């Protein structure tokens, strides 16, 4: 008996290992839509999870297919980078969210497949919003379509702001007040595409020279350079830092709903993104992917996302609801009910931004990150 022991231990281990691995092999069957779907996205889980849940419910209802959906959370630059690394043999089916410029870039590299939406769905989405520069809401060549509108802007912690002696914030320049010294949290533009877009807005609004001076003065007030833009609402909600650039639908709104005190400001010409949806070229589950996109644009999909702080992509939907409902709270949080009623000011020119993408990152590092200590002494001694 004793002699045999190591063998049956080994056998047991093998069985255990094999058992542990079995579920790792996916099963596939021919169905009207595939029963798998992988979405890579910078969009907050708080938006993606309910949307995915609603989609699964819809797929069961409509096709009687139980779709296993995996959502890969990745910042926009990471998601973009992974798609490039996959080079046409993607591990995901859908890329969702971030700035349209990156989608155009991927389309040019032939890494996106046409969305192929029915005309009736596309017709409901206006071509663009914003003046003097238009923000496209769908790709004229059909490689992506906006899911919803998300403004960028500032978030702050009102109690902490009062502590340093300020009542409220309204505009970009309010951030330069020396009372905010050490209270600003920001991600550098090379780490965050949303912050990159915000800095482009500043540079295009104020001009190259004055824009960088503004950025340097903001640097002087900066207490921390966080690794990702989504850390900003996190550290602000907690009260570690008072103010930062943020995308309200990415966590800030959710923090508000879960009880944190937070305020959002939409300063002049702050960036608005249509959160593009696109099918990756060579996706393994193209039918499920297109079905998901169509679902996201349906009334049910739009309503689900609006309850999580994303604005509808069509003038049909307004951020309105009974008092205390998520829609009403979001409208109160941002002060905006719809992006289709008042003219939206937009100065962001994507061609300009793309041409100097690396340059802006480089200059930011040279002028601000490397001289952080010096800036603090120069502007707010």
């Amino acid at each position: 008996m004793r002699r045999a022991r190591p063998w049956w231990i080994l056998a047991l281990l093998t069985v255990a290992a094999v058992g542990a691995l079995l579920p790792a092999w996916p099963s596939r069957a021919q169905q009207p839509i595939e029963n798998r779907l992988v979405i890579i996205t910078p969009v907050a889980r708080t938006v993606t999870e309910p949307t995915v849940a609603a989609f699964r419910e819809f797929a069961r209802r409509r096709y009687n297919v139980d779709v296993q959906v995996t959502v890969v959370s990745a910042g926009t630059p990471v998601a973009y980078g992974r798609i490039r690394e996959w080079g046409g043999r993607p591990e995901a089916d859908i890329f969702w969210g971030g700035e349209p410029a990156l989608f155009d870039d991927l389309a040019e590299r032939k890494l996106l497949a046409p969305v192929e939406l029915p005309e009736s769905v596309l017709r409901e989405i206006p071509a663009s919003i914003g003046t003097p520069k238009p923000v496209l809401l769908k790709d004229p060549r059909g490689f992506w379509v906006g899911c919803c509108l998300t403004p960028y802007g500032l978030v702050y912690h009102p109690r902490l702001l009062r502590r340093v002696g300020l009542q409220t914030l309204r505009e970009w320049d309010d951030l330069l007040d020396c009372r905010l010294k050490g209270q600003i949290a920001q991600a550098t533009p090379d780490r965050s595409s949303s912050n990159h877009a915000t800095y482009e807005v500043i540079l295009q609004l104020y001009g190259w020279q004055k824009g960088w001076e503004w950025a340097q003065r903001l640097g002087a007030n900066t207490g921390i350079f966080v690794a990702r833009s989504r850390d900003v609402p996190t550290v602000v909600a907690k009260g570690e830092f008072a103010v930062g650039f943020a995308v309200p639908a990415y966590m800030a709104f959710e923090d508000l709903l879960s009880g944190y005190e937070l305020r959002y400001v939409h300063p002049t010409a702050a960036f608005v993104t249509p959160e593009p949806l696109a099918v990756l070229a060579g996706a393994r589950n193209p039918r499920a992917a297109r079905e998901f996109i169509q679902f996201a644009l349906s009334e049910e999909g739009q309503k689900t996302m609006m309850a999580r702080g994303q604005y509808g992509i069509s003038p049909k939907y307004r951020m309105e609801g009974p008092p205390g409902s998520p829609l009403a709270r979001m409208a109160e949080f941002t002060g905006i009910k719809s992006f289709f009623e008042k003219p939206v000011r937009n100065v962001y020119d994507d061609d300009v931004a793309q041409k100097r993408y690396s340059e802006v990152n480089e200059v930011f590092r040279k002028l601000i990150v490397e001289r952080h200590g010096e800036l603090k002494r120069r502007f707010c001694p």
Partner: protein
Amino acid sequence: MSVEVAREAAWPRVRPRRRVPGWLWATPVYAFLLLFVVYPLIRLLAEAVTDEAGRLSLTYLAQFAGDPFYRKALVNSLWVAGGTVLGCLALGLPAAFLLVRYDFPGRELWSYLTVLPIVMPPLVGIMGLVFVLGRAGTVNVLLMDYLGLARPVNFLYGWHGVLLAMVLHYFPLVTLNVVDALTKVDASLEEAAEAMGSRGLRRVRDITLPLLTPGLVSGATLVFILSFADFATPLVVGMQDLLAAQAYLNIVQFVDRRLFRMGLVVGALMSLLAIGFLLVARRAVAMREYAVVSYRAVERRPLRGAWRLIAPALFATALGLAFLPHLGLLLAAFGKAWSLTPLPTRFTLEHFDQVLHLTPTYVVNSLRWGAVAVALILVLGVSIGWMLARTSLPGRELVDSVVTLVLALPGTAVGIAYLRAFHAPLAGITLTRSWFVMPLVLAVRRMPYTVRATFASLLTVHPAMEEAAASVGASSLRTFLDVSLPLIWRGVVAGALFSLLFALQEAAATILLVLPGWETITVGIFTFYTSGTFGQAAALGVVLVTLSAAILYAIYRLTGARLGGLFGSGGG
């Protein structure tokens, strides 16, 4: 009657066996190490001198060297690692002396607790620390609300914070290694010194310290290498001008291809430096051949008078600090919308419901990859341990070096190396697209603990016993199973548990390699944390720490607290 028949009659069971030649079973081991350690490493180093088109080019290397930012990052990294080592020595050395040489209330408990701070990934540690010592952490809120401080005290954001967090996290490594070395100091040596007039500090200098050198050096090297490679701690407190942080940040963004290339360069450089540190450390303990075979431990002396209280008080303070992250983690895991109050004002179980019940993927995957990794590790690690201790196969020294090297390589560098090396199909399999890469990278990174444990356990078994078995005709496999295994299984299991423990903690290589559906606990913590849901991140953190503490307790029971040797970075 022929000779053969006579032999058969005399020794019925002893038949000369045809032995499997050593190189035959060693070949797979060599092949594995070559393919999964050496090749990716070489690939990473090659990437540093290649441009986007795959041509040999020194452009990026030159850009690195010519950029004051990266040069400063290198210097900063060296300072941080050096500072952490000093801090850990200051805290860990006295703790080790107290634990080994003196008796005082609660000694056993303290010796177990001292190990705990290390079983936490750095990201989790610093996250927990921010909840307590951050600008809006418990301590600062108390200071501001009750003592009228106008501004929060900056405990964490800056170099001092990085050092504080790292010292509290890594000092147990010094303690463990020194405890291990100290218990092996033969009492008779110290008595002899005393008889010759070497007393007090003089005796420490003449006898104890030289004998401690190997333990000290391996503890210090490990702390140096780990703090040098730690990117999570500095990032959370906003310090980005360090090599590890730059490697990580540059790799995880791909938009700017130049930055991505710089990430490869930094990763390659970090690996080279780690190899360098290891060589230096090895030279420093080259004269460690005074390994003691049998020793009589120095007897513990009871502490007297005030010291009976001071020693536990010292431990309570040091460990109190070291457990602050755990406290912060617990509070954040159960707290709801905790902001600018000393403690959460509302409590909830939602976060645990989320990570254990609604999305149990993280925990399930961690256990699944851990199990496969341990199976791999047992097969490989025990073979290598055996090879090192019992055979004279060619290349043994090299295998030993490769195994030690694995310990020193920063996880980020390993992740990057795997991404680049196994990105193209290899014998029809693209490894980076197969789930197998997860347990594989865990097995490679954590195998050294099992190798070391097997090796150390085999050293305590005299070969004569195996020879005896062989002389009565047992095959080498039979000898191993019937003689060696029963004698060493405790050590091997402890080593495997250690490998499992650290596989669960792995958060650098796996974060770079993970694909949809493969997420582990640490990846989950990272995802939750970066998507702003602290509560869930903290809840997963609590799950991880609980699991780890349980594994550690099992090891502790198996080995009787002699854990030090497993952590060592010096050879075998």
